[in-house]
Each structure stands twice: as C-alpha cells, then as structure tokens.
C-alpha cells in the first residue's frame, strides 16, 4: 500500500517537473495564436480562445522572413553535410592513429572544446575577412569545414573505436585503403552516430544567433534568428507576432528532437569522456 503510494507520488513529481520544462514553450504557442492588439487577458489562457493562424502569415509580410528562411536553409544544407563528412573523417582517422598520438589528439580536442567561443570572435572576424568570407553566408558555414565542434569528432571516434580492430585489419589485408574502409565499413556501421550528429549540427547552425550578428551586415543575407530579432525591434510588445516568429524557429528543432531523443539521452553526451572509452 505504502509502496504504491510512493510510486504514484514519484510519477506525479516527475509529471510536475516535466510540465515545468514544457510549459514555457506551450505558453508561447498559445500566445502566438492570440489576436494582436487585444486587451491582455487578466487570467492565464490555457487554450487559444479564437485561434488566429493569420499571425503566422503576417510575420512573413512584416519582414522578409521568407528570404531569411531561405538563407538559414542554405546554411544548414551546406554546413550539415559538410560537418558529417569532416567529423566522421576525423573521428575515424583518430581511431586509426597509434595509441600515443590518439591520446594527444584527444587531449587537444577536449582543450579546444573548453575554449570559450567569445575569445575567438574578434580574430575569427579578421581571418574570415582575409579569406574573403566576411559578409557572405560562407562566414556562417566555415566552421563546418573543421567538423563544427570537437564534440562531433569525439562522438565518431568513440563509435569507430567500438568496431573491433580485426575488422579494420582484415579489410587492410584485402588491400582496402583508408577511403574504402571509411566508405564501406565505418559509414554504414556508424549510422546512429551520423543521425545524432546530423541533428546536433542542424541545431547548431539553425539556432546560430551570434555568428550572423558578428559577421553578416548585408540585410539580404540575414538568417532566421536575425529576422526574429528584427520583428522584436519593430514592436517589442506585439507578443502574438513575436511568439509566432519564435514558434516558426523552434518547430523544426522540436520535431527533430522528438524523432531522435533516444540518442540525446545517452549517445550524444560529453559524459562519455569519463566512461573509459
């Protein structure tokens, strides 16, 4: 009896906590469907009263959100696949180096992971300028050429280390070179990691607010996060439209997360650094 009560209490606590984390997002969705300019409601609205879907069309008329959406999609379409190639190449290569070299690269990767990105802002600006990438979408895509984050490389490294050495050795005895091994063995076996890194990389580039603020000046190259900020600057109190913009931004992130949340809850964690892998 007491055991059952404890269990129910545990479920309820879990439910309340989970609700606390989802509620802010839900409130944003409800607020996005409100009639703009209506007097504010004195009590919480748990459900949109007269759902006004036109808010979503209106934000595309107020600022060129379609253009910004296109720019965001271009960035993601180039940066995400590029990241998948460079990160999986590097992770696979790391797993094939002699042990001492492996350790050195791992250490270096962890140190880079701890470098706060704001310390790189100023001179990344200069370097992007030298490379002729400043004020182009290339400035936003460039990190993908270097695997985007050492974390992605580490994730692929752990996956490649799990493949038994004999598999690599027998392939090499059959005369396979590194490219063939990557293509025929690593890529098919590492697909869960690829799915996870794909989502993480998508979130990284889709959400990126800082890079366009720092490196993009031409209004026709703005991405979605900047577009939403423009809406905010135009009218800071028009919450229905601001929330509609926010929902447009977060919807793809939420959907992708829902599809792949299994990976997030174990496979994609930096905690694996300490699992002796």
């Amino acid at each position: 009896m007491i055991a059952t009560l404890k269990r129910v209490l545990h479920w309820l606590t879990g439910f309340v906590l989970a609700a606390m984390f989802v509620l802010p997002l839900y409130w944003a969705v409800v607020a996005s469907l409100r009639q703009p300019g209506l007097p504010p409601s004195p009590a919480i609205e748990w459900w949109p009263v007269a759902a006004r879907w036109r808010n979503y069309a209106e934000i595309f008329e107020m600022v060129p959100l379609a253009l910004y959406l296109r720019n965001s999609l271009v960035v993601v379409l180039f940066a995400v696949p590029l990241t998948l190639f460079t990160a999986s190449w590097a992770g696979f290569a790391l797993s094939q180096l002699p042990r001492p070299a492996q350790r050195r690269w791992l250490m270096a990767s962890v140190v880079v992971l701890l470098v706060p990105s704001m310390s790189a802002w100023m001179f990344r600006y200069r370097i992007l300028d030298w490379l002729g990438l400043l004020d182009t979408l290339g400035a936003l895509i460039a990190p993908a050429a270097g695997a985007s984050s050492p974390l992605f490389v580490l994730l692929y490294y752990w996956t490649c280390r799990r493949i038994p050495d004999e598999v690599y050795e027998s392939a090499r005895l059959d005369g396979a070179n590194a490219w063939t091994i990557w293509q025929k063995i690593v890529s098919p076996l590492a697909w869960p990691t690829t799915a996870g890194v794909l989502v993480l990389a998508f979130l990284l580039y889709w959400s990126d607010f800082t890079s366009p603020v720092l490196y993009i000046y031409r209004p026709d190259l703005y991405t979605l996060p900047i577009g939403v900020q423009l809406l905010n600057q135009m009218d800071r109190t028009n919450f229905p439209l601001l929330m509609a913009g926010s929902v447009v931004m977060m919807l793809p992130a939420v959907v992708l997360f829902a599809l792949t949340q299994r990976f997030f809850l174990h496979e994609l964690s930096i905690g694996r650094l300490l699992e002796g892998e």
Partner: protein
Amino acid sequence: MCYHARMRFRLPALRSMPAYQRQVCLFLLPYALGTLVLTVLPALATLVIAFTRYQAVSPPTWAGLENLQRALRSPYIRTVLHNSFFFLALAVPLRLLGALLLALLLQRRGRLFGLYRAAIYLPTVIPEAAYALIWTWILNPLYGPLNLVLRGLGLPAPAWLAEPWSARLSIVILSLFQIGEGFVVLLTGLQNIPRSYYEAAAVDGASGWQAFFRITLPLLAPWLLLLVLRDLIVSLQNTFAPSFIMTYGGPGFATTFLPLLVYELAFDVVDLGLASATLVLAWALIGLTALGIWNILSGLRRQE
C-alpha cells in the same frame, strides 16, 4: 623559426610512414586545419593582443600591462565583471544542483520516465533567439503567464526585466531550464555506479542519505567536475543572446555580461586591445575559480 624547424622535421617523417597512416593523416586534415584557423589561432591572438594597443586601423604596438590596468580602472568593465561573477555564482551551482536532483528523481526505467526525461531536455534544443523571446513574454510584468500565476497564488509579482536586480535574476532563471546536457551526463554517471555498492551499504544498515553522501556523491565527483568546468564557460557564453535580445544589457548595465561587453568593445568601440585584456582578466579569474573547485571536488573523491 621553431615552427619551420618542426615542419622540416615532420615532412620526412610523413614520407617514411606506411601508406595507410598517411591516408589517415589526410582524413584528419580538415578538422585540424579548420579548428586551428577558426578557433585556436584566434583565441591565441586574443592572448597576445591583450598586451598591445590595437584598434584595427594601424598595426598593434606593444603596451605591456596598460590594457589590464585600464580594464581594472574602468567602472563599466568592473560592473560587468561583477555581473558576470554574480551570474556564475548563482547559475552554475543552481544548474548543477537542478540537473543532479532531476537525474536522481527521473533515473528510473520505463516509458513514462523516458518521456519525462525528454521533456527536461526539450528547452535545451530551442534556438536561442526564440528562447529569449519566449521568456520576454513569460516574464512580462503585467500580463506575462509567470506573474499571472504568481498573483493567482497571492505571491509578489516582480517587475522582472524592468528592474536591475530582478532582470539579472531573470537571466539566471531562464538558464536554469536549459540544463539538458548536465542532466544527461549525470544520468550516465548514475548508471555507471554498480548496484552492488548500494546493496552492500544497505546490508551495513546505511540510511538513504548516508548512501547518497558516501557512495553516490563521491562516485559522481568526476562527472560533476567535468560539468562545473564546462558550465563555467558555456553558461556565461550563453548569456549573449538573452542579454542582447531581451534587455540589451539594461536596465542600466544590470544585464551586461562578459560576452555583450566583449561584443561592444570589439565590434562597436573597436578597441581590440582592451577587449582582449578584459577577456584575459575574466578567464584568469574564472580559471582560478575552476582550480579551487577542482581541489574541493578531488578532496571529495579521496574521501571515498
């Protein structure tokens, strides 16, 4: 000089390598080069430029400790450092504690708890611009949902973003809901503790609290350490979007934290020397803090 010497040393070594190893090095090249050019070199340049006068129009000239002194003397920079440490002192322990409590409460197996865990992670994946705007709505003093709830419960309803103290607190509060990473790391940590330890403790008649302080906490220490180190960096970095979008550092300078200051100094004022010196100063202070925490936590581990 040294760099060139090493190049000459390395190249023949590369040639004498087996073909397979050479191909493997080629696979590493994009990652190594990309990280070097876009992260490592810029970060190192900051370290050097901190000791020069550099405003981007003419080449940098050596200035010694001048910038550090200017940073320490400027009331504005001191306020921002103060704000940043206030944020870290509040956000890092609370984020860690929150992640630990949630991991302990929601570690149970089962579909329902899996769903709860996913719900806890969800705010972490929300794009930062959208997340900041959502919280401007939640925290609206007059008709934002949070104050409606508080008033409904008969609790005081602060003006949140409109007043310095509550604004600073607001940025901490919204950071407390993006703790998915730490939550998952600690879940992994908990899973790695062998069940037999708890069984042995139960046989010895240890209470739940004793088991927590003698087994769980010491064995989680390495995970906690990893999280503290990462959070000291990441959580401060992540204040950029909220303070840029929600308050632009205001009211007054109450929510100007290190990233926004660096942005202003480097991209508005274009005083790269001062911006770099401020960064160096802040990281030295944060590094010392991290070292102190390292010592405390490794002491905790030795107790085990």
